[in-house]
């Protein structure tokens, strides 16, 4: 799932300064799960902005709030059609995808990001989120015992561990597990240590063409469904 954190309040205040009527738009999927932009956070941000206004921050705004089930689909955004006429800007608490979806759908409407989209990850425990996938487009988890060295090794090396590992921790931080030690232990459990003995040639990330696109539908003559 996509994990993000809400931007600092003063940055948000600066962003919305030029706009009088602002709609805070939450997203009901990943941003709700990671606690950065669900209905709860929309309401909290609304209250915080009103407080800022009451304490004399520059600019007065009329703030409204709404939460869509998902902002990264045009069909959900269509549900906004009635609301955007009354606003000067949308402050989207969706990930970067949602923000861009809004700017594509409503060409005249300024849209502002309320969160910093951070990574793809999972909760470690309540209130703690860890990155797990870098979306590199060439998954090697089969060879590394289901533990991703690209994300979880600070250096992202494919042939580890490096000399910086100590007592199973990374030299970059004492609190961080060395991904390659985890991989070793896991492969040992799986009796697949021989895959450690192979050499993986470095990968050329430059050849990944951006933006990437995946086409799942076949090209069929005469079809017009989508």
């Amino acid at each position, binding site marked *: 799932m996509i994990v993000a954190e809400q931007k600092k309040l003063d940055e948000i205040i600066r962003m919305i300064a030029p706009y009088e009527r602002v709609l805070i738009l939450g997203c*009901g999927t990943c941003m*709700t799960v990671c606690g950065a932009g*669900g209905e*709860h956070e929309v309401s*909290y941000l609304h209250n*915080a902005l009103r*407080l800022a206004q009451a304490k004399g921050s520059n600019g007065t705004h009329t703030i409204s709030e709404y939460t869509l089930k998902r902002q990264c689909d045009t069909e959900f955004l269509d549900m906004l059609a009635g609301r955007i006429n009354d606003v000067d800007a949308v402050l989207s608490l969706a990930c970067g995808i949602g923000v861009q979806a809004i700017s594509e759908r409503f060409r005249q409407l300024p849209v502002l990001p309320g969160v910093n989209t951070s990574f793809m990850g999972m909760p470690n425990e309540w209130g703690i989120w860890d990155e797990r996938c870098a979306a590199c487009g060439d998954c090697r988890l089969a060879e590394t015992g289901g533990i991703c060295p690209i994300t979880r090794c600070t250096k992202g090396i494919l042939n580890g561990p490096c000399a910086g590992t100590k007592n199973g921790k990374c030299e970059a931080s004492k609190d961080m597990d060395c991904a390659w030690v985890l991989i070793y232990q896991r492969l040992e459990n799986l009796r697949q240590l021989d895959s450690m003995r192979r050499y993986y040639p470095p990968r050329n990330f430059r050849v990944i063409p951006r933006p990437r696109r995946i086409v799942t539908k076949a090209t069929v003559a005469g079809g017009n469904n989508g």
Partner: protein
Amino acid sequence: MYSSATERAQSQLETRPKKSLSDHSFMPPCQVACPLHMDIREYVDLTAQGKIMEALQVIRNGNPFPSICAHVCTHPCEDACRRGQVDAPVAIRALKRFAVEFGGDRMIRPEADTTHDEKVAIVGSGPAGLACAYYLRKLGYPVTIFEAHSELGGMLRVGIPQYRLPREVLDTEIHRLTNMGVEIRTNARVVSIDLLLEMGYKAVFLTIGAHQGLKMGIEGEDSPGVIDGATFLREVNLGLKPSLGEKVAVVGGGNVAIDAARTAVRLGVEQVKVLYRRSRAEMPANEEEVKQANEEGIEIMFLAAPTRIRRRNGHLIVTCIRMELGEPDAKGRRQPVPIQDSEFDEELDALIMAIGQAPQAPGNFGVRLGKGSTIQVDPVTFTTNRVGVFAGGDAVTGPATVVEALSAGRRAASRINDYLNHRYPLPEKEAGDSLSGDLHPETIEAIRKVGRFEWLTTAPEARAKDFGPIELVYDWEAAINEARRCLRCGVGAEILSQDKCATCLTCLRVCPYHVPHLDASGSIQIPVDQCQACGVCVVECPAKVIALRKPHDRRHIDQELDHILQTAAQSNAKPLIIGFCCQYGLFGTGTLAGLWRGAKGGISIVPVLCTAKVEADHMLRAFEVGAEGVFIAGCGEQCARENTDFWVRQRIAKVRRTLEQLHLEPERLQCFTTTATSNGDIGQRLEEFAERIGTLHLASIIMQEVRK
């Protein structure tokens, strides 16, 4: 026919309370078990907040004579209470007693107007008759009670000993009935129903009770010195002082047997023994009464029954036989079987037979009788075989409890109302869902164990001397602490829309009681029968899709904040400090109320039902409406719930981060808790806080001036 008054009365009559649209709560086990279906959870909760008058109001809505129930109810609610699965059931009856004593019950004067012409006669003035009279009078009918004895009350007066139900209590309730306009005819034994109907009564309610003592059918049962329990209690209660001698035995294991034995002790009998043919486990008498009887020196001989009574030299020689328990009968009670050649003799001065009672309806009443001479009625309409003649109470059920009789009286009033209005009886209102099932072991483990707070009783040596009341009432602190033990079954959290739920599992992770779980299809479920209604998941849910089944907290807090804003604008008190204070526990007793009055500056209090329900949003709003400082005051370790303090501090940390970004000092937001040992320094800390806020306020004014 319908005036607004009768409609109002009708709505009061409904056996189960109405629900508002947004109320999705389930009926808790205590309410289901109560024959009157009283809203126990509600009044216990109000008591926990120290709102005794409101609690009494709820009690009075569900019970015509709460002071009587507060003394003598057999409290089936407590047997059903799920707190019993954790440690011990909530002492519901004692809490009702507390509410009645402290809530000003004596001041209440119900009134009724006559809005109907049809007169109703009630034969017998026991609890069923009195309750029926009360509700019929509330509906606007002219009601007459006919009582054979010189005083009203039926078994309440002639059956229940005074030490359990002081007569003033009964007299007060009866006085209320007379004030409401119920006509009372004492010393008026009804001999003919036909006569009543000729006198113009359109309906008759027979509640003649079950006063006839049953006989064992053993040799010598009619000897002098052998008396049946009901007659014995009646004589004593009507002021006679039968002389029993020095050694007395009571046969039976019910409440009447225990009452008779304890009454005998109070008459000065030196040695009182109870003979019961089964063992302690099968004994139908109230456990507490048995315990108190033991304390008063009454010996209970189990597995023994008399077989023959002879009279010799002015004494009774009672031959008894030992029993053993055999196979369970149809009701599941193990049957006593005599042991061969185990007879033994007891020399006694008197023997009281309290093995059961039956109603005694005169033959010329013309009503059909059923098993054990009980009057046969339709269980729904309460009608007998005679037109316009209804019956209820012990006369129909055989000896039962006061609360069952009150319930019968209330339902009969409703049915008589239907009959007199020529309409089919309205079906019993079902209140939707009721809660059942046991708590899961992991939930029980997570619930803080707090034993029952005992109320005081007079010492056995002192109380056994006379008929003075033996049970004292809770003091405030004990009552409030006891009420806080309620698990609030059936008002827990619910997911308002599975569609909006992002299944983020926050509720599952934050619940202190391990209640939410994923079902087989991957949706989150919060089982209503397990939820403890602490409110943590409601506040933490990122999708705001969880609510308590009885939602009032959030709206209530918003309203209070608006109210504070208005009053603060008028008073001009600066700097304004807003405190969210828990209404349960010590705060409910007004301990804190006394403290904040002394604090400097304008401190406004938003009462909350547990600080776990205060959202970060509320704290921001408090600052927005103009507070210079905000504090949360909760019970800390004394909180009946787990982890409340942790969640309050999480939210405070979040709001403080926001305050910092807005260049407001984070110390403007504080959290005060009392510990289990002391709450003494809270006043001082509040004082210091107010002082600090004052300084900050002054500093900010100076800064503004400087900027200008």
